[in-house]
């Protein structure tokens, strides 16, 4: 199988001469005049002005709204923001992967148009993506050669290998050009990606969240590579949501929030606190009124939980927490810090390798979701379309997914259609779900907000004793969001224990009684929500020790 894929990719390599013939005119026309002159340190290499980006159909919220951004020669420029702030989109526009809707880009003061990644490379802008784009069965050198215009039928790989060795020596990017990519670690693969980009000698190199796959030591090494590249006069753009990294490696930092430019600062002239405030924004949205609730018994207890992620790496590293009846425990954290794995382990969807999960004092570690349901736990899942509903089935069928076994819903294994119709009609009107025909329309055609309401209805109508909810208001409009918050608080007053996992810090702040902050698979601290400062939580989310 591997050999087959290998030959397949080789065949692709051989097709390159054809590409070359087709592109010859274009590439000769565009000689790299800019690269002829070496930039002075501090000279602006690339400047973006008034960049706007909207996607068809969602023009009302621009993903990027009038962004100004520039990169100077010899600097490491950090692009900081939460998930969904638009960092990656901006980088993709600069490197030609996305087109821009409005705005201009200048290279060394001259306006340029970037229509493809190839254009961007011609103008000296290269990008290293967060996800690897490598052909796994090929060697490092072959991977680098794949993207080169000059490779042809009898392309001497030794030339590429030599060049890779040169580059590796120059920047300390240790990679064996003859090694197969599939044998390399994540850190090494990333170095290959960087080499692939460096091979084109870009003046500006953009790295999208490069540290997300790296161990701390590997990150340290990467930072010294970034510094080395900057020293040579390149401009390095470094995308991250981790404050510590910004402080450690960058010269300047630009903060984006929800597609808007918040500001650009010199790293030496700012501090963590200011950056957090810029990143999170601080218009406090409404806080629902809360009555004091007497806490009941411990509903959920997690002890020293260890869970692996898909790649087999430890994603949850010894988390312990408790939620009592009548309490909402919020888990705040940037996505990808182990929240999903934690929730899946608690709800029986992922194996716990060490530690314990107790529901109302009963050990339910690694029990099936069905057993957990019977123990009184309901789960509002993160990926609603993937997990929360069966899209090919009708709304009524989706609304009874958790109840169909029990008595009025089915009798003697026969589904009780008339009761189900009455029940689901009530759900639809109570939770304001818009469904044309309960028994006919496929759930696929419902909007995300409606699907979310459907899931909320299904999970909460019985007033469960323990709810594990992930982003419960994701995609809901303001009214529905308020309804959901009220619902959660009402349930809480009735003695429901709620574990609330959300990236939306406002939501966590306004609902929770206590907030636990998760970072890299560990709870870095638990604070009382009433007295918590947003800045402090933000700092903890960004991995800063407080």
């Amino acid at each position, binding site marked *: 199988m591997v050999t087959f894929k290998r030959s397949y990719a080789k065949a692709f390599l051989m097709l390159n001469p054809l590409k070359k013939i087709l592109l010859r005119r274009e590439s000769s026309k565009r000689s790299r005049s800019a690269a002829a002159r070496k930039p002075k340190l501090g000279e602006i290499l690339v400047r973006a002005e008034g960049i706007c980006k909207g996607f068809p159909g969602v023009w*009302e919220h621009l993903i990027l709204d009038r962004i100004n951004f520039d990169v100077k020669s010899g600097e490491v420029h950090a692009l900081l923001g939460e998930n969904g702030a638009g960092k990656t989109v901006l980088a993709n526009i600069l490197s030609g992967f996305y087109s821009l809707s409005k705005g201009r880009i200048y290279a060394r003061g001259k306006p340029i148009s970037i229509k493809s990644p190839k254009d961007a490379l011609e103008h000296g802008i290269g990008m290293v993506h967060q996800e690897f784009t490598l052909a796994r069965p090929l060697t490092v050198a072959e991977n680098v050669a794949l993207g080169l215009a000059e490779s042809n039928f009898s392309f001497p790989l030794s030339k590429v290998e030599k060049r890779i060795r040169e580059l590796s020596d120059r920047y300390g990017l240790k990679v064996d050009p003859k090694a197969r990519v599939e044998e390399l670690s994540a850190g090494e693969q990333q170095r290959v990606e960087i080499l692939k980009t460096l091979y084109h000698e870009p003046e500006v190199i953009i790295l999208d969240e490069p540290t997300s796959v790296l161990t701390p030591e590997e990150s340290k090494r990467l930072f010294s590579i970034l510094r080395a590249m900057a020293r040579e006069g390149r401009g390095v753009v470094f995308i991250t949501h981790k404050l510590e990294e910004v402080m450690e490696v960058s010269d300047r930092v630009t903060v984006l929030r929800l597609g808007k430019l918040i500001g650009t600062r010199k790293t030496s002239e700012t501090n963590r606190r200011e950056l957090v405030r810029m990143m999170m924004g601080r218009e406090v949205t409404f806080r629902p009124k809360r009555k004091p609730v007497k806490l009941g018994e411990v509903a959920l207890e997690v002890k020293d939980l260890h869970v692996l992620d898909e790649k087999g790496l430890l994603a949850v590293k010894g988390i312990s927490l408790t939620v009592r009846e009548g309490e909402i425990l919020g888990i705040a954290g940037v996505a990808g810090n182990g929240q999903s794995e934690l929730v899946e382990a608690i*709800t029986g*969807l992922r194996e716990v390798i060490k530690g314990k999960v107790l529901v109302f004092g009963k050990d339910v570690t690694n029990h*099936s*979701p*069905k*057993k*957990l*349901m019977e123990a009184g736990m309901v*789960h509002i*899942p993160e990926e609603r379309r*993937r*997990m*929360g*509903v*069966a*899209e*090919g*089935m009708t709304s009524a*069928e989706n609304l009874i*997914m*958790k109840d*169909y*076994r029990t008595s009025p819903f*089915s009798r003697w*294994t*026969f*589904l009780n*259609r008339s009761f189900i119709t009455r029940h689901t009609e009530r759900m639809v009107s109570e939770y304001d779900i*818009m469904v*044309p*025909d309960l028994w*006919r*329309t*496929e759930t696929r*055609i419902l*909007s995300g907000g409606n699907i979310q309401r459907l899931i909320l209805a299904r999970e909460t109508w019985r007033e469960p004793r323990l709810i594990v909810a992930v982003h419960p208001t994701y995609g809901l*409009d303001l*009214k529905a969001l308020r309804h959901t918050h009220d619902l959660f608080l009402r349930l809480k007053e009735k003695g429901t224990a709620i574990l609330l996992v959300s990236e939306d810090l406002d939501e966590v702040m306004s609902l929770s009684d206590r907030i636990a902050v998760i970072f890299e698979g560990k709870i870095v601290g638990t604070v009382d929500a009433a007295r918590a400062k947003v800045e402090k939580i933000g700092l903890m989310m960004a991995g800063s020790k407080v």
Partner: protein
Amino acid sequence: MDVGEFVRLRLSQSMISKLPNLFMGYIRGLKRPLIESAFAIFVGLIVGALIMIIFRHDPIEGYISMLKGYGIFIAKRTFMTREFMFALAFATPYMLTALTFAVGVRAGLFNIGAEGQLYIGAAAASWMAAHVALPSGFHVFAVTVFAMLAGALWAVLPALLKIWKGVHEVISTIMLNWMAFYLVMYLAIYHLRGIWAHITKEALPTARYPVLAGSLTAVIFIALLVCIGVYIFLWRMHPGYELRLVGDNPDAARYAGMSISRAIFLSFIIGGLVAGLAGASLAVRPEKWGFHATLGDLMGYGFAGIGVALVGRNHPIGIIPAAIFFGGLAHSGRFMEFDIRISSELVGAIQGVIIIAMALPGLLALIRRKAK
């Protein structure tokens, strides 16, 4: 907030802006399969006509002759029940093997094991019908049940391989089809033979299904009942609901606390039972009341069932008309050969084109779902 923005916001939140979307969704949900099927038949007929023209046959004459397969326009009569009964005789096994495939698809499987399970069912039926003496009345019942159980037994292995080892059902069922082929051929020659070596022993009179006309037996009533039964099972009973949910989204099923293994097992077993019944319907029928040791009169029904299921949109009720359509097509071949002297191979080609065209929308939908 200016006025325009306010209005836009209100509109986007109100039902009105969503109405067109919802309406279209409803139309899509209901009418689309019908329109697609009609279009597919049309395309199939056109291409079939082109083939006939290329080979210098009159397509109109050809299609009129094809209608005879359904008992229409024969010998100056608008409808001839007897010929239609022949079409139904072909339709019976199609219906059942299609059901095997459809129940697989509903559980997210590509179960093409009907062919082999049908052979095993035929062998079991033949043995029970010809070699075991039982009181009349009960004998027919015993033959039917035994054939079904044998078919189900043959489906257990791919089911377990899938559940325990994740072996893809296409691989395991294809291999088991060939195992069944040679096993049944061996059984037919050495253990089920009657007077002649090339044909299995005649079923005892007590084991024969009542004959309605020609080769059509009362098995068709059992087949129809089975279709309705499977429909009720899938849409009105909760194990069937679980099966469909597993097929639609296994992640959601797991999240809802269902047992995916159980649903897959159930789907295979139902498929096996039904395919076994198809075997019985072919092994115990006039004129021979047995089957050839070459398995010539059993072959192909399992795979044809895939096409029938696709045309019937993998719906137990939709399969019934689809099977009758295919049955008539199979029966019309002899008329086309006789009337306009088309070679039987060409008849097969024309039928194949129509079948492919008809199955296309269903197949595309299946591929789309699988690709997701």
